[in-house]
């Protein structure tokens, strides 16, 4: 293998749970560090670097400053990886886009709203080219490790594009619909090993939608289980408001 790839980690608007999840690889951290050099990571270290081979970026873009920074990162890195729901598809932050931005700001800061500029929360791919995604909220650790080994081996990682239900059935979980809950697993992209349904909680859709989801079919399922049409779409929008814009 040639030189170790230089890795940088950045965060934008988000909860930094994905970054924390990187520090939570206690059992693998030393192996990971054997394969890469971490050259910039504000949350964990002081150093800054001029360029890098791989940039992992968490969070969505929601201020003019974010846009400048992400463009700068894109210029400095060979590979850009979006880490977690906020970066990949806008995530939770996208919910605020469903309301008029001025209203939202006024609600929080009242008259002081102009002190702090804000934009609709954008996923990274809406502004720059993203090479790979690690989905989930927080980013799925098993998927991160898969991506990591792929990058070290110099192969393109494959993104799963089937429903969470598949993984859920592979694990022989009792379907949470059986437990009287509703679940977004049927249209949500797998890769998390059906983490939530495996412990009795419904899938909230954090990993984004599968390609070409049948949304009206999903709406029908949710409505049949007692939600109003509006509530059904609110459920779907929890992590996917940006992708669902105009779909309703």
């Amino acid at each position, binding site marked *: 293998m040639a030189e170790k790839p230089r890795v940088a980690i950045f965060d934008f*608007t988000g*909860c930094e*749970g994905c970054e924390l999840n990187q*520090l939570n690889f206690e059992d693998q951290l030393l192996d990971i560090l054997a394969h890469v050099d971490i050259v910039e990571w504000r949350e964990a270290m*002081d150093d800054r670097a001029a360029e890098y081979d791989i940039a992992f970026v968490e969070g969505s873009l929601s201020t003019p400053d974010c846009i400048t920074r992400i463009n700068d990162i894109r210029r400095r890195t060979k590979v850009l990886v979006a880490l977690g729901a906020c970066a990949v598809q806008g995530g939770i932050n996208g*919910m605020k886009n469903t309301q008029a931005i001025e209203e939202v700001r006024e*609600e929080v800061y009242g008259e002081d709203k102009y002190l*702090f500029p804000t934009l609709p929360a954008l996923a990274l791919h809406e502004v720059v080219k993203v090479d790979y995604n690690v989905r989930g909220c927080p980013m799925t650790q098993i998927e991160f490790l898969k991506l990591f080994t792929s990058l070290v081996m110099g192969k393109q990682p494959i993104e799963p594009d089937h429903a969470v239900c598949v993984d859920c059935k592979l694990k022989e979980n009792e379907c949470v619909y059986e437990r009287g809950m509703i679940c977004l697993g049927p249209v949500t992209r797998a890769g998390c090993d059906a983490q*939530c349904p495996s412990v009795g909680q419904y899938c909230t859709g954090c990993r984004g939608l599968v390609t070409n989801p049948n949304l009206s079919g999903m709406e029908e399922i949710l409505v049949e289980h007692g939600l109003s049409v509006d509530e059904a779409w609110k459920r779907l929008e929890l992590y996917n408001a940006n992708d669902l814009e105009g779909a309703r």
Partner: protein
Amino acid sequence: MGTNLDIKVKHLTRVEGHGDIVVNMKEGRLEKAQLEIVEAPRYFEAMLKGRSFHEAAIITSRICGICSLGHQITSLKTTEQALGLEVSDQTVALRKLCIHGATLQSNILHAYFLAAPDFLNVGSVFPLVGSHPEVVKRALRMKRLANDMGDVISGRAVHPITPVPGGFTAIPSASALKELKRRLEEDMYPDLLATVETLKSLAGAIPGFTRETEYISLRNDHEYALYDGDICSSDTGRISDTEYRKMTNEFVVPHSTSKHCKVNRSSYMAGALARWNNNHDKLGELAHTAAAALGLTPDCYNPYMNTIAQVVEAADCAIDSIRLLDELLANGLKDELPNQEPTKFGTGVGCTEVPRGILYHEYTYDNKGRIVKANCIIPTGQNLANIDDDMKKLVPEIIEKSKEEITLHLEMLVRAYDPCISCSVHLLDVEFVE
């Protein structure tokens, strides 16, 4: 004196979220000494509006990945109070275990990964992998166990899955709990002792600065209050949690996307040091031994000692976890379902001690169980005014030092608070118009 000083630390490292330190001194007069919060606001209130009670905790836990468990538990307590949902003793015990796990993980992360590099004069934990491999491995082992407590009990350490209004969607197995207990006893206990030893050798690097302020934390009669209690001020004593607004008083300042707070003085402190000052009498033996070894005394007014107070309470969390596990195992785990049948729809208040201090949530629900009004007050927001006040006292005291040293002292001060900036920037205080 006539000193001029101009410090600007942009995007301070090794803290959670984005903040700048700005200090301006002109001819000996301090014009500015403050932590500017530049993290983008996230507007959680807009997200909560109209959301069902099933989703409130899922959303609010995304305010912050570092404090996700704290937000989640606080949110659940709030929802349960608003909707009149009773929870079982088993649920409470499991939640307390989660809080211990999260506190352990957060305090260890802070002490070893964020603060220790300052004591050892390096820029991050990574050089320590080579220079102090045993210490790094110990830190990772402790963190792993703390996270495993989260994984086993709440499904996942970051953004927990199983805690829902009324209980848990899945109850951990007895064998998994036994294994946690074994590891706490056999691994965590000696690692904690070793941590105290390591820190003792580094204690010289902690600056001797003091400033007395108001200390606010939860307090109750039966334990070191983390899960619940009255709100207690070192200045004015205890009041009920429902009156939390009296104990916060938020205001907007232009240099911060996060609101500031004050009560009896211009600022107050929340967090491990506040808890220690208010509740040290409730800590167990191991914590007291650790405190004595590390020079943490009652009524400690040195904010830099917050890191030490975190380690002291981490020790208590580990010991109390063993007690809780014993209790749960002795009672036998019941495979109970969450109680999700609301008995009323109204307003609820929840407050919990999370690693950085006391956290408040308040929600009002409509009669379909949807949120109409929400308010969250986050510990880091509460500490911001106090940090600014500390800086204003600190800078003149160390003005003789080099600019680099002053900067380092300031950075260390801010880090000692272990501020969680992403949490602090979305205070929710909104009436929604239906």
